[in-house]
């Protein structure tokens, strides 16, 4: 029977109609609203924004609805939208020192200026399924108090007072920050591009790489200097005004890892930094990113580059889940032309193999 691949057009349209139908599920169950997803699937929305590189909770929630909850598909929708947006400028660097933090923890000091603020966290919960949640009901109101007006200096700046931690180079307005979505990535990539790639990178992939450094594949002896989550203001300088105007606020998660460095001929022993940043509440991602950022700085500190997490080309070429999923899934596209070429080759090689086997047998008989 010869089934030609004709009429693909109608088949595709039908397949997509079926997809829409399946996405809706049982029509007797009320339809999810975008607002429900945005408000109640917040961590998922945050992750779509982070990996989609676009801070827009409503759009991320809509993408999740359209993607039937598939994370990478939602990221895909957001990225394909983002790529068409005009760029009218670059914001001022955000100042996380002024973050209104809802959570701020440090693992290297018991107490510190600004205090330890637990905030909403899964940490220390018992992971027991709460069957009461299956029934709808309002949770108890959390305790409230006046927000502390105390500033929260970064932990690294406390270490900096003693010159125990590397100094970050000051921002140079003459050196524009790279953007790998606008310029092709070139190796070796600067730290700006590495951080951008990691921030957009797949949380699972970055997590596994960070984990691998803890297990000895590029060991960096990390400590969580600080994690902070909260709102920061975005400021922009329009050319015609010449001063910064606020554009709005966004929620960020920032993590700074502090790692040991034994020093080199040029530098005294000191602590070094790994940095992680995610949109919304992305603590796991920010921590993993900070670990990998530090691992990728191996060459900078004259450390041996031996592990995957230290290998810039390996990490940057493979951390993007859209690129990964696209290329893996393209294997379901037809390959019959190439497979035909391989079929022919294998048949010919088998024929030669059999012919060769007979000659061997003849020789043995003689």
């Amino acid at each position: 029977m010869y089934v030609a691949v004709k009429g693909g057009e109608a088949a595709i349209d039908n397949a997509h109609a079926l997809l829409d139908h399946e996405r809706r599920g049982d029509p007797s169950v009320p339809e999810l609203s975008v607002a429900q997803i945005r408000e109640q699937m917040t961590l998922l929305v945050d992750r779509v924004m982070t990996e989609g590189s676009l801070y827009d909770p409503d759009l991320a929630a809509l993408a999740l609805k359209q993607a039937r909850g598939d994370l990478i598909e939602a990221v895909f929708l957001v990225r394909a939208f983002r790529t068409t947006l005009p760029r009218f400028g670059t914001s001022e660097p955000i100042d996380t020192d002024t973050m209104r933090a809802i959570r701020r923890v440090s693992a290297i000091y018991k107490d510190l200026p600004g205090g330890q603020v637990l905030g909403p966290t899964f940490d220390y919960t018992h992971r027991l399924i709460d069957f009461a949640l299956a029934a709808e009901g309002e949770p108890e109101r959390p305790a409230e108090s006046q927000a502390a007006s105390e500033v929260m200096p970064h932990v690294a700046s406390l270490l900096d007072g003693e010159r125990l931690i590397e100094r970050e180079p000051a921002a140079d307005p003459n050196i524009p920050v790279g953007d790998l979505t606008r310029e092709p990535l070139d190796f070796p990539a600067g730290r700006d591009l590495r951080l951008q790639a990691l921030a957009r990178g797949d949380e699972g992939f970055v997590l596994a790489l960070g984990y691998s450094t803890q297990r000895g594949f590029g060991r960096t002896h990390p400590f969580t200097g600080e994690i902070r989550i909260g709102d920061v203001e975005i400021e922009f300088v329009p050319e015609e005004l010449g001063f910064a105007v606020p554009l709005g606020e966004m929620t960020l998660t920032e993590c700074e890892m502090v790692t040991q460095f034994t020093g080199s001929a040029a530098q005294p022993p000191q602590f070094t930094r790994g940095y992680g940043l995610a949109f919304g509440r992305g603590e796991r991602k920010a921590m993993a990113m900070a670990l990998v950022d530090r691992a990728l700085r191996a060459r900078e500190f004259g450390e041996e580059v031996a592990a995957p997490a230290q290998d810039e080309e390996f990490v940057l070429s493979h951390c993007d889940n859209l690129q990964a999923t696209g290329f893996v899934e393209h294997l379901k596209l037809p390959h019959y032309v190439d497979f035909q070429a391989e079929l022919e080759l294998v048949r010919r090689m088998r024929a030669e193999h059999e012919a060769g086997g007979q000659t061997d047998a003849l020789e043995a008989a003689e």
Partner: protein
Amino acid sequence: MNEHAQATGYNFAYLDEQTKRMIRRAILKGIAIPGYQVPFASREMPMPYGWGTGGVQVTAAILGPDDVLKVIDQGSDDTTNAVSIRKFFARTAGVATTTKTVEATVIQTRHRVPETALRSDQVLVYQVPIPEPLRYLEPRETETRKLHALGEYGLMHVKLYEDIARHGHVATTYAYPVEVAGRYVMDPSPVPKFDNPKIDDCEALQLFGAGREKRIYAVPPHTKVRSLDFEDHPFRVQTFKDPCALCAAEGVYLDEVVLDDRGGRMFVCSDTDYCEERREAGHRGHLAGDDPLSPVGRGRVAEGDRVREEHKSDSASPSPRPSPHRGEGEEALP
């Protein structure tokens, strides 16, 4: 901007003009340095990486309102991805589309070069998954760029030599490496090596786009493109013992179609447009019916069944059930 594009809310052919200019600069550089992989700021497209985003961006950058676009995948205009890409440009650019090679001004392709010789007023745009011919020999981009810069292709020659030492012939059947204009070794994309001779001295401009890998390269018209080989082991292409079962074409690339679960096979043109043109011109293969376009033209399952029925009852047909190996033969010099 035409009506179609206005209706979609996107710029003509989806990409904004700045992006198109950036891609055109990369294309021009590629044309100036044949076979050299030009890095470009590949955009995120509304189709997945690995599904032709590079080709789509090149096509979007060169497409004008008067162009006639043809899109093929595996030689066919009707494979799902070809349909999808053709619809994309019909929607975002409103350009005329065609399935006929001779009518098209821009042809985007995946894995094949059309059998009909291309003309100087046509552009062939290849979708490329891995643009780096040395990638499987050296995974690092930093290294392979150095090797290209130095023209150091020893790795590739050793690989081909080892194939010959082990198998008696080169064991690469598609994405067979070529040397372009005597300088750069280039991956012709995963076309069967059968198509390599068509890339050489082609009248049409050939552009290659790799979206995920962010590379564009080009073979300008009438450029010498040599498939790598050795004096005592010259490059050979696949040949097929039998002609196309539908249009009786010889010297073309054939797809093997499994007819039943008892080893029955038929071999038909991979280039569906070529096959249809020939059947319209009256050529008949041994399994073709009387209707010029019966099996492929509207060929769904039902027609396929009918072909088999006709074929069974046709006593003049040379062999009721083709043997599994009958379609292929030796390799021949191009």
